[in-house]
């Protein structure tokens, strides 16, 4: 699989750089998602070995000032 190169225009990256990320868990209840269990079941291993699944973490972008409240 080839590496893709992306140039994010400055007008956007300047905004994004002012934000940081916080991480949240999926909500339990009607959907039985539990990342730790899925990892135990080997699902994350399969994903991790697949180059197209490049992400292992949940990123939620939040302006820094919100976290500083």
């Amino acid at each position: 699989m080839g590496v893709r190169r992306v140039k994010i225009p400055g007008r956007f990256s300047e905004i994004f750089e002012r934000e940081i990320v916080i991480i949240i868990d999926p909500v339990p209840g009607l959907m039985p998602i539990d990342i730790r269990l899925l990892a135990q079941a080997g699902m994350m291993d399969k994903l991790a070995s697949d180059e197209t699944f490049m992400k292992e973490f949940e990123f939620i972008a939040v302006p820094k000032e919100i976290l500083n409240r």
Partner: protein
Amino acid sequence: MNDRKLTLPFLSNLGLMLTYRCTTACPHCLVEAGPHRTEQMPLDRCLAWIEEARAYRDGHIQGIALTGGEPFYDLAMLSEVSSRARELGFVVTAVTNAFWASTLQSARDTLRQVPGIRILSISTDVYHQRSIPFRNVRHAIEAAKELDRLYNIAVCTDTKDDPGYQRIAAQIAEIGDAERMRVAMTLPIGRAKQNASSLTYEISSTPAAEACSMANWPVVFPNGDVQACIGPLLTLPPDHPMCLGNANRMKLTEILDRAETNPLLHIIRVWGPRRLVALLEEHGAGEMLPKEYICGSPCDVCYKLMSDERIVRRLGEILDEEEIRQEVAYARIYFLNELAMAEAYGLHTEA
């Protein structure tokens, strides 16, 4: 990176809401499931959607999450669906209220009939315990351990100060499973709407900062509707942007592909619904906005916005702006390392 938690990529898990039937009609139930309900996913459609999911993007979908209602209500169907999904290589998960585990032996017998299910999420809380005692949960857990199934325990409450919640948390701790307990907030939606005055919330004029990672995983409903998440929006008529399409009218794979370019969905994934609130304010539509929100609940923000037709219409106009769509596409690359939207828009990506 230490404080980051594992999660799965967009569209890597597909929910199937098998039935609205349930052995009990809990007062908090979002989908208003119960013994009186009759809607069930047709088995042939269900199996066809699983096959379609397997073929999607050469195996992109890794998990099938079976939900309801009570998926164990029709054990024969659950057995067939979970076995087929497992044969196709999916990690199969299911929610349950453990009604079938009144004795340890019945719990073992039931789980043996669904060997395809790898992970169970067992619901117990003050609502479920009105009709299903905690001993069922204990039996289900014991049987799951014996049969090498993974499990967690989902508890719903409006407040952790509730003595009923605290009693159940103590029961779970007593059997050594405190770490497997996951807590969700009861929202005044669905059947709980009738009892909203008895629910206790902290209220704020500021929308919750969190995003909803549940929007990573769409859910197919018995009538074919594909919802972007299994949250409160499923109680609304399916003309809001988080209802992705109907799999009886178009191919499931087309619906999933189309979801890649749904700007509202990805704003919720990247920034959370509070970003929609900010966009409305920036575009002079602040007077349309709710005056208060439940603290810490992005679902509440999302529901309040999507249940207002004027807001949905205005958001549609705002999100038609090319600059905003591009910002969302680039944000998905910047924050989530996801190229699909930028590629679909013909933005600057090159092999």
